[in-house]
């Protein structure tokens, strides 16, 4: 049995008929076709499926699509207009804040919420704010530097 849902993703209404057990991350990737959001551990630990759900970060592998019906979602694709990079994306690029890139969408979405709450975090606060996001490549140093750099260029935006 399927249920009709409608979720606003990156400002655009996305309607679909889904099984109640479908996870939001699969709706985003398969129904909306936005594959920036990744499925990693699938146990709400690694954070690569992090999106903004009604304004706050959420792990899309631990939310049912039907739960989110009527809500607004922002994914990594929604951060920039497609021409200019978001300052966080720019900073991850400039600081080599990624190697394989699999964790990056979630890292940036989590960092985005961190900076919205705390526009100039210390390196320690950045580490604490990103503790729900796991990277297996970088050793985190450059990720922390990237967020620090983005905070400066966003200037409390």
């Amino acid at each position, binding site marked *: 049995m399927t249920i009709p849902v409608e979720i606003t993703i990156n400002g655009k209404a996305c309607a679909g008929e889904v099984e*109640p057990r479908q996870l939001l991350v699969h709706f985003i990737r398969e129904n909306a076709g936005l594959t920036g959001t990744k499925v990693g551990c699938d146990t*709400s630990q690694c*954070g690569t499926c992090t999106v903004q759900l009604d304004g706050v970060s*959420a*792990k899309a592998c631990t939310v049912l699509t*039907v739960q989110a019906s009527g809500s607004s979602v922002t994914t990594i694709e929604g951060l920039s207009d497609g021409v200019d990079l978001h300052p966080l994306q720019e900073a991850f690029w400039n600081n080599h804040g990624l190697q394989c890139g699999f964790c990056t969408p979630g890292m940036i979405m989590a960092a985005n919420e961190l900076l919205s709450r705390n526009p100039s975090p210390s390196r320690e606060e950045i580490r604490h704010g990103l*503790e*729900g996001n796991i990277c297996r490549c970088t050793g985190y140093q450059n990720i922390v530097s990237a967020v620090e750099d983005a905070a400066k260029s966003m200037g409390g935006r």
Partner: protein
Amino acid sequence: MFPAQITYRRAGSVAEAVQLLSDNEGAKLLAGGHSLLPLMKLRLAAPATLVDIGRIEALKGVSASDGGITIGALTTHAEIAGSDLVQQHASVLAEAAALVGDPAVRNRGTIGGSVSHADPASDQPTVLTALGATFNVTGPGGDRSIAAADFATGLLENALEENEVLTSISVPSVPSGAGAAYVKFSHPASRYAVVGAAAILTVSGGTCSSASVVVGGVEATPARASSVEAALAGSDLSDSALDAAAAAVAGDLNGDPMSDVFASAEYRRAMASVYVRRALGAAASRAG
């Protein structure tokens, strides 16, 4: 990983949720889903029907009440961590909420969902037991209250009847002059408490007049550390008194400590005294 097939119903009110639970045998409530959905993916839970109460506004938020605060069951960990009222009346609850999972988990996970899940490795059941909180529930027969200490009845089991809904939690104010603290040994991946310790110490005239100490993560339900409390009563809360009191926790953990690949029963027992000592130290430094 998908959960098994389910029927999904969204409840618009507590009364409707109670009705849906009564009408659908084996139905389970869904709040933030951060405890239940992981279990369902692993097929450790397979309810035929989920009754989603996540949008019932009446169950959200913190309000002042007689002698303390009332926290709606759907209030998220992030909201509790950032609540001025919680900070004023029972700051230890905010301290613990800020240690749950990670920021994204705290945004979605709710206090009612967490305590109903009754995982001894969760943080808030330990703190709420130490605070002497009361859980308010609504069922077909009306409302009733359950003491926090009686709510968890076993590993992942609680005192709710099948068609009852936990609606709010009443938390008495920590008395002025008392010091309270919660510390935990976090599992490095899941952030669940391998061991969590909550301590509330009331001090008058330089001696401890009453103590409430509870340990989570070690036994199937939050364990009251009666021996530690007895050792503290009347003590001067000096370092040596706290050392001796914390060591007494061994006598309170005679049950069957949990054991897994990450932490054996013996290790959990050893860490219990370490973390109780830290909680006592922090609470004592905040008392008076």
